[in-house]
């Protein structure tokens, strides 16, 4: 039965050697184009990239920041992948992240004086619930009413971000005059310890590692992950096989939102110690990019996150040191996607053309002797 199922699946979504090879070429070309842009705008590419690598790995602190960024990217990337596996695009992770962070901050600032072993798990529950439920909303709209989830999730991002900004400036605003906008601080006892002093790398990396393992297991090794994959690739077939596709889509959406909510919690409990309106700077979109480049493969996402984190953290150092705007990194990252798309498209065109030529040759080869026989 399983073999029959597997034979029906298109096997091209795997991260094969050919795919990784084309990825390497794309990354190299994108970095080259980035160098060209530096040259054209009057900077030295060698100097720029040297500052980038040094800024990402040069000191213990820089290394910690890069790893911390990799944690955020892999969590958001995995969130995208979990939903995409079941065939639903969660573009609303940014909003889910904000709500999760807000919920966790409320728990941490209201329940002061509790043992951390009780309060922190409660904060996790709050973040998971807030993020998960908020993701469930477009999920239900998609499954029950067939409303396009891409548009609704994007709209819900803005709704959540403005709502949280309202809360942090209004009803939940801290009495502390020194804070521009934000909720009350969480109890210091709940703050995650730093793994590398002075860097952004906190104990959230440990939680993230556990969550990443869990994601990998569910997506790649469990029955439910397999059913999700089938639902994503061929929902009609999955339904005929007796799978509850609607429920699978909803669960994967909720899981995706929960992961984003947890990222919000990480930001609050690890770094800012309170909810602030600038909690995330489009972290989810960066993670989405990683997930799309790695074709939603969990292991690939974690590895690629480290590379993207290097670009991101190093990019800031490059801006400070050499003066090249760090947005260059966004350009390089999106160009990687364009190159990947171009390569797979060109490969397909070449394959089709070759197939057509081979077919024509076969027909001609057969026709000629037949024609001779009849004449």
């Amino acid at each position, binding site marked *: 039965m399983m073999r029959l199922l597997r034979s029906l699946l298109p096997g091209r979504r795997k991260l094969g050697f050919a795919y990784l090879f084309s990825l390497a070429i794309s990354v190299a070309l994108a970095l080259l184009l980035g160098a060209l*842009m530096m040259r054209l*705008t*009057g900077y030295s590419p060698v100097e720029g990239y040297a500052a980038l690598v040094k800024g990402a790995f040069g000191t213990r602190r820089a290394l910690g920041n890069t790893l911390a960024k990799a944690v955020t990217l892999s969590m958001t990337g995995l969130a995208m992948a979990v939903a995409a596996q079941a065939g639903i*695009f969660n*573009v609303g992770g940014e909003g889910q992240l904000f709500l999760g962070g807000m919920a966790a901050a409320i728990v941490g600032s209201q329940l002061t004086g509790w043992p951390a072993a009780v309060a922190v798990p409660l904060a996790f529950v709050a973040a998971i619930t807030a993020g998960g439920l908020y993701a469930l909303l*477009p999920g239900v*709209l998609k499954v029950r*009413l*067939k*409303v*396009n989830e*891409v*548009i*609704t999730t*994007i*709209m*819900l*991002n*803005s*709704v959540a971000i*403005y*709502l949280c*900004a*309202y809360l942090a*400036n*209004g009803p939940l605003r801290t009495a502390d005059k020194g804070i521009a906008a934000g909720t009350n601080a969480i109890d210091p006892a709940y703050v995650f310890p730093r793994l590398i002093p002075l860097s952004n790398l906190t104990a959230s990396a440990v939680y993230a590692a556990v969550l990443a393992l869990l994601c990998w297991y569910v997506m790649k090794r469990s029955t439910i992950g397999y059913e999700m994959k089938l639902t994503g690739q061929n929902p009609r077939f999955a339904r005929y096989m007796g799978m509850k596709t609607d429920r699978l889509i909803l669960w994967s959406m909720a899981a995706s939102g929960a992961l984003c909510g947890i990222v919000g919690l990480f930001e609050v409990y690890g770094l800012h110690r309170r909810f602030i309106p600038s909690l995330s700077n489009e972290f989810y*979109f960066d993670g*989405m*990019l990683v997930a*799309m480049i790695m074709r939603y493969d969990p292991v690939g996402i974690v590895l690629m996150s480290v590379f993207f984190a290097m670009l991101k953290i190093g990019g800031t150092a490059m801006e400070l040191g050499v003066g090249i*705007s760090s*947005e*260059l*990194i*966004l*350009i390089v*990252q*999106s*160009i990687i*996607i*364009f190159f990947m*798309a*171009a390569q*797979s*498209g*060109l490969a*397909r*065109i070449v394959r089709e053309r070759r197939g057509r030529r081979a077919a024509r040759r076969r027909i001609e080869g057969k026709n000629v002797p037949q024609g001779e026989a009849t004449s």
Partner: protein
Amino acid sequence: MSDIFTIALLQNTLRTATPIILAGLGVLMTDHVGIMNIGMDGMMLTGAFFAVVGSFYLGSWLGGIAAALLAGVLLGLFFGVFVIKLGSDEFIIGVALNIFAGGLTVYLLRTIFGVKGAFSDPAIVPLPRFVWPWLEGIPVIGPLLSGNTLLVYVSWALVLVCWLVIYRTPLGFWLRAAGEHPLSLRSAGISPERMKYLASLLCGVFAGLAGAHLSLGYLTMFTENMSAARGFIAVACVIFGAGSPPRVFLAALLFGFIDALGLRLQSANVNSNLTAMAPYLVTVVMMAVLVVRTEARKKRQIQTR
């Protein structure tokens, strides 16, 4: 209440609706050939940036529009090559295009003008504004029709032109056929691919105009990420409008109204974050309502049959 519902509210409605109308017409073009253009937001943003560049360096608003159009057409062609020729996923290319546009505009803002965040300069020439004193005497309609910038009128005309072209000309018929029955179109001797390219290019043209209105229409400046998800609202408008230009126009006016109402309420001391939320929330609610209603209509049709 009378402070809020004024002529100025309606004037603001027209002003804020215009970029959504123009972007909506662009999305509509690709929608008819069966491509959902999520990248509209980024195309608009790029258009807005190059409108400022053109206007600043060429010293004329025409130069600004020309630069915005050029940027739009190039991005439209770029999008078309990937989605049509290379068969890439339009969603992935759209998302990548948005990120690319966000990065490119800020990078160029930094390297060309040496500023971060926003760029405004007296040397940027805004779009011309048409004031007709004889019209302004007419109550309500007069102040609405007079005193708008060029692209407001252009957008109204384009709604009509698009409707005529799509539903009343062979070209529009081919465009729609390229989306609905590409094989029949091919057997009629017309290439669906060519129609799709045409739609992508037109989409770029509209994106350029929408961007030019954003940065040269009323503000005369470029700010980072100034499209503020308007491209996505335009996509939503096309879904509400079911592909018909007049209906997309009405949907865009509705969003313009909500946006303008929010601004008015803000001056009436309602929290700005809550009012800013409104257009996005309304989009979600409207999309759900629309789908429920069309489903119900379908069901009724089946029952009566």
